[in-house]
């Protein structure tokens, strides 16, 4: 399990405070990029009539996912416990291969770099990367 140091958590919380106002945009763009750059991820959305990266279902889902990330920031001191329900959802209902968490995380980092080029320093980048990796691990907790 990736251990988030106090410094990591402070960096994540500080950066999130700056960007949370754009959370919906970050979510929509991250998901759009994931679908466009990694077309294999579209296999999870075959039930959408419109699978295009900038379609309505994708945009709505990007917001949903990002709300989950925002919630995780508030539970950063115990992600495993805090994300228990979400983990069960992903494990038993959605059954998303955890490799995809890394893919989505990468696209979130790209969007953050685009939207916040000054604030997304290497130090913030490493803290966010570690946080998203920990988040992914917590989400995969109930898989097996």
């Amino acid at each position, binding site marked *: 399990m990736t251990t988030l140091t106090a410094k990591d958590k402070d960096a994540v919380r500080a950066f999130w405070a700056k960007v949370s106002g754009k959370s919906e945009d970050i979510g929509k763009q991250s998901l*759009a*990029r994931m679908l*466009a*750059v990694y077309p294999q991820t579209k296999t999870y959305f075959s039930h959408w009539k419109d699978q295009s*990266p900038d379609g309505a279902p994708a945009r709505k889902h990007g917001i949903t996912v990002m709300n989950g990330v925002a919630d995780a920031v508030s539970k950063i001191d115990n992600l495993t416990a805090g994300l228990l329900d979400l983990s069960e959802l992903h494990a038993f209902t959605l059954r998303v291969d955890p490799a995809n968490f890394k893919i989505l995380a*990468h696209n979130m*980092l*790209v969007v953050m*770099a*685009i939207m916040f*080029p000054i604030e*997304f320093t*290497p*130090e913030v*980048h*490493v803290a966010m*990367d570690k946080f998203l990796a920990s988040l992914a691990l917590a989400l995969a907790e109930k898989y097996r």
Partner: protein
Amino acid sequence: MVEWTEQERTIITSIFSSLDYEDIGPKALSRCLIVYPWTQRYFGAFGNLYNAEAIKTNPNIAAHGVKVLHGLDRAVKNMDNIKATYAELSVLHSEKLHVDPDNFKLLSDCLTIVIAAKMGSGFTPEIQATWQKFLAVVVSALGRQYH
């Protein structure tokens, strides 16, 4: 063999023609050493890498970042034969430099993020897809001659 559309070729040559190597190279390499600190193992002789500030201001790292970025020029000029173009470089990274090929992807991800920050909203999802496809081919070619 990797197929490239006309649009993909244009995207790649366009990004490289307006690339500021002296700016992007150092930023990409230093970001890689900060975000993935184990990559510092290859730079023992480069001087002070003790913290992010030291890495960001290290002139040896900066110079090397420029060098690595220029290494991509050959791929841009030979997009239809990247594998053969990089055969020698692949051998070098394997036999002489002993770089774990997984690290190529780490640097490639950092380069993507630095380019994204520079291009802003101009780095559209379509351009990102082409850019990442190009880097994936480069990364694969660099790892090809390992045994």
